């Protein structure tokens, strides 16, 4: 089995008696995109700051590429990068100057060609000679992503990189992330509040809450943990017949229209309800099952529901 790009073991961070991160452990294998999710204050940002070396862990061990981060900081940082919609580049100088500085920081002697390549891809070439603080938030985010790709990283830590992007640029960014993962085998640790993005690109999701890992699974696996489902039936039948049948089975329901009933139930009872109504002579003309999404999982965790 190959060495994981990142291995986090029992990571702990205490701030003046408050435990912000509590015994967090996970690994990121090559080529995987791992989502780090959780409500505000869950410990995501503190975890990322420790993974980047700008906050010192209270306990635990971080290993990149089989090397201890505490003792091989520079070697590890040379092979990873970071993009965030919250960190900006130096506002007083131009985009090109910023990227040249970061090129040199990553040991690239002549970074201009690489800067041009990514500037074309992200459609910021006309902005290269504008001051960074004159850019819009979306433009800044695209420039930050170029910075994150300058050193051909094997692992990128992304903290809500699309938070400020227009939908089309966000979509393009996600496509790029998928493409660089596919072609270069780049791994990504990805935090976002956009559940559709996480579901689309993440192979695995780690939910943090109160500093601890609350759940860790594939996006599909996590949604399967929620057994509740919403069943919407369009029926040709007497409304009282349907209501009586559902009441007998202690179902929560309401009629959204005369012939449409919405039932909040669990996945395992859906067949029973459909067949039971049919046996009572209810003609079902349409069936729609709303399955739980990752957002439902997120909301349940954020609201303190332990049944996830």
């Amino acid at each position, binding site marked *: 089995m190959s060495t994981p790009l990142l291995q986090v073991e029992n990571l702990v961070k205490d701030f003046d008696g408050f435990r912000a991160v509590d015994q967090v452990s996970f690994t990121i294998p090559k080529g995987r995109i791992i989502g780090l999710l959780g409500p505000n204050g869950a410990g995501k940002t503190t975890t990322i700051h420790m993974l980047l070396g*700008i906050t010192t862990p209270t306990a635990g061990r971080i290993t990149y590429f089989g090397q201890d981060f505490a003792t091989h900081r520079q070697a590890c940082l040379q092979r990873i990068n970071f993009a965030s919609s919250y960190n900006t580049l130096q506002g007083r100088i131009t985009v090109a100057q910023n990227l040249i500085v970061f090129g040199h920081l990553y040991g690239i002697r002549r970074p201009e060609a690489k800067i041009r390549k990514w500037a074309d891809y992200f459609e910021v070439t006309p902005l290269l000679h504008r001051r960074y*603080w004159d850019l819009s938030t979306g433009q800044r985010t695209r420039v930050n992503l170029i910075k994150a790709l300058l050193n051909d990283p094997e692992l990128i830590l992304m903290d809500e990189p699309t938070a400020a992007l227009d939908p089309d640029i966000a979509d393009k960014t996600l496509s790029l992330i998928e493409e660089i993962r596919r072609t270069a085998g780049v791994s990504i640790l990805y935090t976002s509040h956009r559940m559709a993005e996480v579901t689309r690109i993440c192979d695995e999701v780690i939910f943090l809450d109160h500093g601890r890992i609350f759940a860790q699974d594939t996006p599909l696996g996590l949604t399967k943990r929620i057994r509740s489902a919403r069943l919407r039936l369009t029926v040709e039948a007497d409304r009282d017949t349907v209501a009586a049948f559902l009441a007998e089975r202690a179902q929560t329901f309401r009629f959204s229209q005369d012939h449409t009933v919405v039932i909040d139930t669990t996945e395992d009872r859906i067949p029973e309800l459909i067949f039971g109504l049919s046996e009572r002579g209810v003609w079902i003309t349409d069936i729609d099952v709303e399955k739980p999404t990752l957002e439902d999982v997120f909301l349940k965790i954020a609201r303190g529901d332990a049944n996830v």
Partner: protein
Amino acid sequence: MSERIKAILLQELYITRGSLEIVIDLFYTSLMTVVVFGLVSGFLTGVLNPNTGSYLILGMLLWDVIRVNQYSITVGSLWNIWSHNLSNMFVAPLSLLEYVIAGLLSGLLKTLVIFAMISVVAAAWFHFNIGRIGVVNLALFFGNLTLFAWSVGLVLLGIVFLIGTRIQALAWGAVFIFQPLTAAFFPLRVLPPAVRAVAYGIPPTWVFEAARRALADPSVDWTSAGIAFGENLLYLGIGVWAFYLMWSRSRDSGQFARNDG
């Protein structure tokens, strides 16, 4: 030179070139100060002993070595903190040592340029040639004042990292506490005896005293230079230790990461 030190120097060049604030803080302030001190010195030279009259402009030229070096080291980091860019730089493979060396070099380069500029102005407009104190003396004074500025700059930078931008005014203001204490513009004997005893423990005091004597006799005062250098080594040792302690503490407390956001 390390590629990363080059990167920081390049960034400093870009920022300095493109920021009116820095041009005003460093070049314009130095220029205006030398003009004012030159005029006052010219007046005093007319009514006092000519050497005594030159104390002000001499003190001003040498004081700027401290001011510009220290300003550059401390405020150089603030430009990145204000831009939320400091942690971006430290998540690149930049070591603390490389960052500090680049900051010190950048301060030294700016100081050399500004010192040359105001020295030319002092010579051309106010007939004060700093070279009259002797080239070796000048080099020793410049070196000792630079070392002192580095120590102060590192401590102030550590405080900024540790506490954040709410004490940022210290970055350009705190160093002025040493201006009266080191008798930058007047003979040390002017200070009360108790303060004078403290002043002897601060390296620039020896420099300013020796510089004033050198106006009359440019022979090198190796004793004063040696004492100043010895004190500077102690100050620099304490400065580096304090800076590293505060840097480590700011990473422990999470303040370093919060400085950006």
